[in-house]
């Protein structure tokens, strides 16, 4: 069954899939990787983003990606507000480890139930001109349903990376991740910086949601399927490393695609998480984490 075109297509499909995984994981790379907040509700916010894309697409014909970009600022403010609640209720009193986790579990369930109550449990999908089209270069296929999410995710990752590396606030976020006390001694307010960073992480969920609904149908509880994968990507890439997260997402996507093509799709999660376990055994801090 092995052939060059099968191999090339498997690699390309894996890269495109990995690109989408990066969009799902980038918010967690900031919130979990840099702020150490176990936001288990992140995929639920992605589903909210998907529903907003669905509503504006089905009612007004808006492109889902455009909706994702437009919704991102609103998500930012919601994220900032949630962090403020989290800080006041848990972080300030030092109860963030277990109680904080329970808090985000609660947020996840509330989001799911609210979506069910408002929109029901039917599957939701979007229409866009590029969904269903495929570009063919030689013998390699580029389905636009996967290529568009990849391109948007790559641009989002590049933008977040540049923001983190070249802006004052981006550097402040990295600083608060490294040494909160030192930052406080420099006169900066770590709570405000973390609130900003949390908002930024949640804002990416709006875009990831719009990409998710381009790829396939969405219902309120579908986000749970991505919890394990998203956290695994952040850990594999190295906590706090945006570049590492993107490469880890690509690795996971390529491994899944290659295994699905040549060995059988039921092996994909086992092999992908096997790669994670092996990498962590060799490099406990992940691919780009500080040792």
């Amino acid at each position, binding site marked *: *069954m092995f*052939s060059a075109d*099968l191999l090339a*297509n*498997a690699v390309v*499909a*894996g890269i*495109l*899939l990995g690109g*989408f*995984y990066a969009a799902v994981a980038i918010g967690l790379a900031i919130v979990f990787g840099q702020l150490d907040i176990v936001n288990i509700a992140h995929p639920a916010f992605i589903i909210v983003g998907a529903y907003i894309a669905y509503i504006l697409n089905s009612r007004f014909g808006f492109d889902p990606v455009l909706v994702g970009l437009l919704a991102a600022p609103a998500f930012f403010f919601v994220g900032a507000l949630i962090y403020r609640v989290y800080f006041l209720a848990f972080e300030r009193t030092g109860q963030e480890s277990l109680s904080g986790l329970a808090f985000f579990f609660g947020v996840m369930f509330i989001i*799911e*139930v609210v979506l*069910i109550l*408002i*929109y*029901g*449990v*039917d*599957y*939701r*999908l979007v*229409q866009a001109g590029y*969904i*269903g089209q*495929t570009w063919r270069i030689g013998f390699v*296929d580029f*389905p636009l*349903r*996967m290529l568009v999410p990849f391109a948007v995710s790559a641009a989002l990752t590049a933008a977040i990376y540049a923001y983190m590396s070249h802006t004052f606030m981006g550097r402040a976020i990295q600083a608060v991740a490294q040494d909160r006390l030192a930052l406080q001694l420099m006169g900066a307010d770590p709570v405000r910086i973390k609130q900003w960073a949390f908002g930024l992480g949640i804002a990416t969920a709006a875009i990831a949601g719009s990409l998710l609904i381009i*790829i*396939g*149908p969405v*219902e*309120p*509880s*579908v986000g749970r*399927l*991505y919890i394990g*994968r998203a956290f695994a990507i952040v850990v594999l890439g190295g906590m706090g490393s945006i570049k590492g997260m993107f490469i880890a997402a690509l690795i996971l996507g390529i491994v*899944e*695609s*290659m295994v*699905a*093509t*040549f060995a*059988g*799709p*039921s092996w*994909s*999660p086992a092999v992908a998480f096997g790669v994670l376990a092996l990498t962590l055994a060799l490099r406990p801090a992940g691919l780009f984490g500080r040792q």
Partner: protein
Amino acid sequence: MTHSRRKWLLISVALAAAAALAAPLAHAQQKPIKIGFSMALTGGLAGGGKGALISMEIWRDDVNKKGGLLGRPVALVYYDDATQPANVPGIYTKLLEVDKVDLVVSGYGTNLIAPAMPIIMRKKLVFPALFGLGANEEFKYDRYFQIMPAGPAPKLDWSKGFFELAMEQNPKPKSVAIVAADAEFALNAAEGARANAKKLKLDIVYDKTYPPATTDFTPIVRAIQATSPDIVYVGSYPPDSVGMVKAASEVGLKTKMFGGGMVGLQFAAIQKNLGPLLNGIVNYDFWVPEPTLNFPGVNEFLAKYRVAAKDKGVDPFGHYLPPYSYAYLEVLGQAVEATKSLDHSKLAAYMHKTTFDTVVGKVKFGKNGEWARTRTLQVQFRDVQPDNLEQFAGPGKRIVLYPKEWKSGNIVFPYKQ
């Protein structure tokens, strides 16, 4: 008319009016017959579960309008099982021990029927069940009655039509690819497909399962394509079915027959979104608006369903599950009325020997509680236009190919995208 005759006439009218008013009052004061069940109102199967509940409430209202069962009103007592099998035993225990329901029916789906079986069997209750594939195969419970028309050998009958249709074509297919989700229903469907393929001496060139969390199906379809199968049998759940159909189109899958056991292609929202990508696919179904399946009462029921389902976030047409969730209560209700009893042994005996008239046609159960004869339809999508939901409300888009007695058209073969 004399004064005394007028007086007697007035008294008679007053007594007749009082009797007429007292009858519904007595009916209302009667203790209701409680029918208990768990239902997937949240979680993965909630799309079907909520639609089923709507149709069960329509049945309850229809029955109560006609005076209830045995002169008593009917009440439904239900709890959300959240599509979690672990919740089901607790729910049925509560229904029986705390709510003291008179009758029970199952929730929706194989995974949510099986966990209730030990409790139901211990209490020796009649158990009408809703869409479980081979759920009684291990239990062999003689009071289990499955409304899904899979047939006496559910796993085999599920795909029998797909393979029989394929083998009637010229040239006859020689090879098959079987791909299924790694979950209960799809694995059962794949097991049946494998057995049917072996019986027909088809060469199985691809036989794999995929995890339910699969996002991209193009690598799977491409791997199938590499084996050049004559036909492709898919056992999948709604999101996967969408992914599989889109991937088949994107990869340009070349095969003569594609489909079989794809759940989701029966739902209006998915049909609308996939549009012309569906054309040519042959897939199972249980009811479609073709003239051959115009059973008495089904259109009246669906008209009520469409009104009740509006703005509830469930399938707007309700062709797939709702007629059957109405029918399994119809069967139970008819049995109660005919035996004039809530005695489960009498009900079970009656249900085994009787052919029921329901909105899904005549229902006759076999020895194992499945339909005595399969009516798993194989339908082919035809002439589907883009972005048009209403086209699926009427005939002509899902042509019935199998079984022959319900056939509404001939297959277009080979499959063309």
